[in-house]
């Protein structure tokens, strides 16, 4: 009973899968070992995402406490490290309510539909040299496609709750998400063009200098767009509407809510992983043959800390300002980046179609200048429309009363 994966099987390159498959295949029928190997992969993947979400939630609470001159959680475990477990236990024991008039199947499906894209996205990210759980050759396209499923999940949450406030929040969430999809996709096309391939492993290998230098505009647009897609401040109108009306997850309690939160935090972790892969040259660094995974984790952690930092600092934008930012600022800027990169790649590449490191440096120089100019230009343009005329600051008035002539 020796089950072997032929080299034309797409699962052939996933080393872990092949090893488990062949090992189990010696004992059990092939179709069963197929399934077991799949489960093992999924086990690792789900654990990675959920563990990442848990650690991220701890990191966020401690860091925001630091920013706000107070301690974060510090009761459970040293430095509060067991706090996520305490939260998990609490959520499991909470009563799981479903509104009577809610659409039960859709209502129950939402946490799964929200969590699944996050898990699926992490499958293609290479976290060490030549190591990814699934080395798809359309990795970038896959990541972008899977991200869009989140908007469906949010709408499902809002609709199935049978609650006008949830619908409100969900409608906004979907508007924000689909508005920010377009600049995100366009900004990634530049990266794909330079790397010459959509596979994430190839993108990392093509980064002789990190793409954050070569494509600063794409990084800017991608980070902003991702923050909006993850519903993080300053773009979190859809969910932190809870200042007056709760967001799309108002009716969720117990572990369903826990899974939605896990999806949100896991989304940040996964997005950081993707950003590190595309722009910060992934796992590369000194001695990356052995500790490439360590560099990857450190870089992803740093990007996650930047997301937390931004959340702790900025107030949130209003919904119309959010949409204006996407359509009038990020979209033109990303299109400029696309054209510029296309022209540069066309003129600079050699006959084989690849770019030398010196070419990348030239592109970096041009792109930085272009980034500064376009951000300045579009930033000024969008600013003029939002700020009304007239200044509000008056010098302190002298003694006495100055009554405006209108009264």
């Amino acid at each position, binding site marked *: 009973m020796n089950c072997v994966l032929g080299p034309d099987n797409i699962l052939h390159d996933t080393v872990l899968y092949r090893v488990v498959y062949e090992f189990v295949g010696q004992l059990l029928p092939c179709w069963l070992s197929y399934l077991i190997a799949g489960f093992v992969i999924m086990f690792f993947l789900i654990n990675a995402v959920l563990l990442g979400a848990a650690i991220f939630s701890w990191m966020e609470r401690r860091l925001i406490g630091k920013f*706000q001159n107070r301690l974060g959680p510090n009761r459970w475990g040293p430095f509060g490290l067991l706090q996520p477990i305490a939260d998990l236990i609490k959520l499991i024991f909470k009563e799981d309510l479903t509104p009577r008039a809610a659409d039960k199947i859709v209502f129950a499906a939402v946490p799964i539909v929200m969590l699944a894209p996050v898990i699926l996205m992490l499958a293609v990210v290479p976290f060490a040299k030549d190591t990814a759980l699934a080395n798809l050759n359309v990795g970038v396209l896959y990541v972008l496609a899977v991200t869009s499923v989140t908007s469906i999940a949010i709408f499902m949450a809002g609709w199935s709750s049978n609650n006008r406030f949830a619908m409100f929040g969900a409608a906004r969430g979907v508007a924000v998400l689909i508005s920010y999809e377009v600049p995100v996709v366009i900004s990634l096309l530049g990266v794909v063009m330079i790397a010459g391939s959509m596979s994430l492993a190839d993108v990392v290998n093509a980064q002789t200098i990190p793409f954050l230098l070569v494509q600063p505009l794409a990084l800017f647009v991608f980070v902003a767009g991702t923050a909006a897609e993850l519903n993080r401040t300053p773009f979190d109108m859809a969910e932190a509407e809870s200042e007056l009306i709760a967001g799309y997850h108002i009716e969720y309690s117990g572990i369903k809510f826990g899974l939605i939160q896990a999806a949100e935090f896991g989304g940040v972790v996964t997005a950081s992983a993707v950003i590190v892969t595309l722009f910060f040259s992934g796992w590369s660094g000194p001695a990356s043959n052995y500790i490439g995974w360590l560099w990857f984790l450190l870089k992803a952690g740093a990007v996650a800390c930047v997301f937390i930092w931004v959340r*702790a*600092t900025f107030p949130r934008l209003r919904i119309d300002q959010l949409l204006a930012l996407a359509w009038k600022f990020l979209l033109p800027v990303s299109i400029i980046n696309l054209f510029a990169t296309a022209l540069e790649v066309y003129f600079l590449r050699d006959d084989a179609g690849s770019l030398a490191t010196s070419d990348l440096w030239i592109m970096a120089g041009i792109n930085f200048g272009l980034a500064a100019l376009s951000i300045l230009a579009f930033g000024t343009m969008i*600013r003029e429309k*939002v700020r009304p005329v007239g200044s*509000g600051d*008056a010098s302190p008035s002298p003694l006495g009363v100055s009554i*405006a002539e209108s009264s």
Partner: protein
Amino acid sequence: MTIRTEPMTVNIGPQHPSTHGVFRLRVTFDGEEILQVEPIVGYLHRGTEKLAEERNYTQIVTLTDRLDYVSSMINNQAYCLAVEKLLGAEVPPRAKYLRTLTAELQRIASHLVGIGFILQDLGTLGTPLMYCFRSRERILDLFEMLCGARITVSYMRPGGVFFDAPTDFWPALDQFLKDFDTEFKEIEQLVLENEIVMVRTRGVSLLPLDLAINCSVSGPVLRASGLAWDWRKMEPYDAYDKVEFDVPTAINGDNYDRFWLRIQEIHQSVRIVEQCIRQIEPGPVRADVPLVLRPEPGAEAYGRVEASKGELAFYLVSDGGISPYRCKIRSPSLINLTVTEHLLVGYKLADMIVTLGSLDINMGEVDR
């Protein structure tokens, strides 16, 4: 095919995550836009005015603490002023300076709360709020040094203040002013030129001056609309005629102006505190006024101060007994709420909370 839409009536409060106390607002929305607003108050009504008719004049000081509970010193000051007008009593100079000093410290603390919560409502998740509260904690520690209580201070009495400041109060106050300088600069840097704050608050909820005057609006809300009227300058009481300070005013009357104005008022309050420290002289802190007061029967007085939220006034009527016959409290927050409808109708859902924050109402004062 026309899509049928209908406006939605929603209840905001009385419990809601945005702190302003127990305040209820019935709002009718058409999608994003606010069509109609009805404020409903009274959830914190404790019958202070009726209680005051049962307490003697000194005991009422403790009732006044609990009016605007983030601004107790100033409530005490308003009440004591009214009683002194009733009696015709004269306050010794040291007590005047102590009152001015503590009232201005309290104004700083109250404005820090106001500013912090406006920023919280904008969605900053509490970082500027924590910065403001860090400074406010220092002020409350100073109050604890003075009178033993942080929030409901009951420090002033008709005729002066309760007790002189201990000797270690003055170095602590100097240290606070020095630290506050740097701390407040941090807050200003964080929020005053922040693009998102400006974009969310400029041009939102404009209040024209003639409407403000007609609706009896007072305090920072009136000054943000363009009128430089401050009762500390117009009818000086305590030591306000001996210290120099400016009255910040703004022109537009939008949310940003009300927010900016409170920050400027904090600067002016710091100025006043520094001058008080320099000018204060040793002396008695309380006039020779009996503990159980019996003013003239038929006497009445209207004593007003510039509280942190507007014109706070006590209208006292005496019948010769140990309690006032009528103690009417003119509360600035309740009257500032008159303009709620004008400020909210036509603006968006997301602006509503920020506007209520910029009005800086306190339910203890609204409901009494």
